């Protein structure tokens, strides 16, 4: 797009899309900001007028605010750790020539197509149920007392469920990256006397750096707002109340739209802080 003419034509063509995106983002954002400055209780009097920053102060000073931020970060961090480590491992495995490769790959991708609500229900009722769950049977088979997963290890359980859903995504991206590795590089390293572990550390892992960065960034965006998995399992009890879930409770359970909206603005701030940190840590991998 070199000429003045083609540039302005391009701008014209892009305008509808840009406009749509702006409306799509700006309308909800403005509404959130608008409500966050009001005392708005739909079932208890409706719009009760402007209150300034009152909602913001009440949201942060509530005793559940900091624990919810902490829970959010623990869940996001845990899922990232599990999906990246296992994803690299699975990608290495799937990259090996083997019989039935196509089918195995589809099976590995499959969990990604299951809706979060469904997968959480399946995990809750078929695997983690302390009476009928598969895990309970397994534990009993070995003569152990069944674990009540969702109340005894609630955060771990949710991390497990969410990781199961996101592992395919990580594996898929990492596998694609793995396949673009020049096999001559590995052969050269082999001739240079690098052991399989050294080859992994010096050649494969640096090559995957960019893909790992992308996996981390994309997953973080989605994981900061996980909801369904908590809603159908613990309902935010046992310390699994994330920031998203707290906002949901404020708006729908306490029917306080103003307070929830202020929480929403905090969620935006949290997401930006996390993004900033991530870009600092892993963003340089994207330059190469």
């Amino acid at each position, binding site marked *: 797009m070199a000429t003045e003419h083609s540039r302005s034509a391009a701008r014209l063509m892009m305008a509808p899309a840009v406009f749509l995106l702006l409306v799509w983002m700006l309308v909800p954002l403005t509404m959130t900001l608008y409500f966050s400055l009001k005392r708005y209780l739909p079932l208890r009097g409706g719009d009760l007028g402007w209150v300034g920053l009152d909602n913001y102060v009440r949201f942060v000073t509530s005793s559940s605010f900091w624990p919810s931020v902490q829970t959010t970060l623990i869940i996001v961090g845990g899922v990232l750790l599990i999906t990246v480590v296992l994803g690299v491992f699975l990608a290495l495995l799937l990259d090996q020539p083997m019989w039935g490769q196509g089918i195995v790959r589809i099976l590995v991708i499959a969990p990604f197509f299951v809706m979060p609500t469904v997968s959480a229900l399946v995990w809750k009722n078929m695997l983690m149920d302390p009476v009928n769950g598969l895990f309970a049977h397994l534990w009993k088979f070995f003569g152990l007392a069944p674990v009540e997963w969702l109340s005894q290890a609630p955060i771990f359980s949710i991390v497990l469920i969410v990781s199961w859903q996101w592992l395919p995504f990580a594996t898929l991206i990492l596998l694609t990256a793995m396949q673009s590795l*020049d096999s001559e*590089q590995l*052969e050269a390293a082999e001739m240079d006397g690098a052991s399989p572990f*050294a080859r992994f550390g010096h050649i494969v892992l640096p090559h995957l750096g960019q893909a790992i960065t992308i996996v981390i960034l994309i997953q973080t965006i989605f994981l900061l707002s996980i909801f369904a998995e908590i809603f159908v399992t613990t309902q935010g009890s046992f310390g699994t109340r994330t920031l998203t879930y707290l906002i949901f409770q404020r708006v729908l359970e306490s029917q306080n739209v103003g307070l929830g909206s202020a929480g929403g603005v905090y969620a935006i701030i949290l997401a930006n802080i996390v993004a900033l940190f991530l870009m600092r840590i892993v963003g340089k991998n994207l330059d190469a």
Partner: protein
Amino acid sequence: MGRIVLDKVEKNFGEVTVIPPLDLEIEDGEFVVFVGPSGCGKSTLLRLIAGLEDVTGGAIRIDGEDATAVPPAKRGLAMVFQSYALYPHMTVRKNISFPLRMAKLDKAEQDRRVEQAAAVLNLTEYLDRRPGQLSGGQRQRVAIGRAIVREPGAFLFDEPLSNLDAALRVGMRLEISELHERLKTTMIYVTHDQVEAMTMADKIVVLQAGRIEQVGSPLELYRAPRNRFVAGFIGSPKMNFLEGPEAAKRDAQTIGVRPEHIAPSPSEGMWKGRIGVSEHLGSDTFFHVHMEGYANPITVRSGGEVAMHHGDTIYLTPDAERIYRFDDKGLRIV
């Protein structure tokens, strides 16, 4: 250090035989070039020697010891790949020192060897760059540097110059030859370019479909090719082959004569033809001469500035001493 013997080495990929049993001896310090057309198994043979492929049958001996089952890193050989296979996220220094770091050499010795290799290869200024910031020729030199620092028993090169442009190729060719003069280490060099083979080799191995057609010094192959394939492959431009009455006159199925062994003349000679395309290179002129009764034109070399042109009648006289005769199996009749 660096005597390599292949004893009935054989390689199949599944059902396909790429290298039928093959014997070859490479002496210590020799510069051996494998040449042959594309797909003839040159790279495969090199990779067998390197240990990157397992042999299907036979044995490989390095310095008298059976190395058939020895892993690549333990064979004491260094390889330079066609794609260079540099490690993109490491600096040139890290790339070159990689084999030394893997061997856990002490830091001072590593630095000494890297500096030395960089000096030899004119890479000193580039040590802190990444491969992505280097030109093709510089990358090639880094790849060679990475091979040199290991002080291997033999170097293996797989078409190392094929990604470079013509001028750079000539330069690198000289540099590699010079390196061989200096290090006196065995080098095995794969190429499909017969000019590289002729100019660099102590010994050329001509391969076709995994079989060795002939082994010998460049001039031996030039003067006394064993068969038609070698005669056609070695020498540039290619040898002319004639069948029919001219061959029959000399009791052969085919006769061959090189472009440089035919004397052209505008007035008299043994064969008469008409000039087709002529290529004026300044130092030489190559005429493609069409002769009655022969489908393919005959290439003739002449001096740089001759007054003969497209469409002119030309007379050719081959040097009787240098006419090669081949039988119906393509073998040369001596």
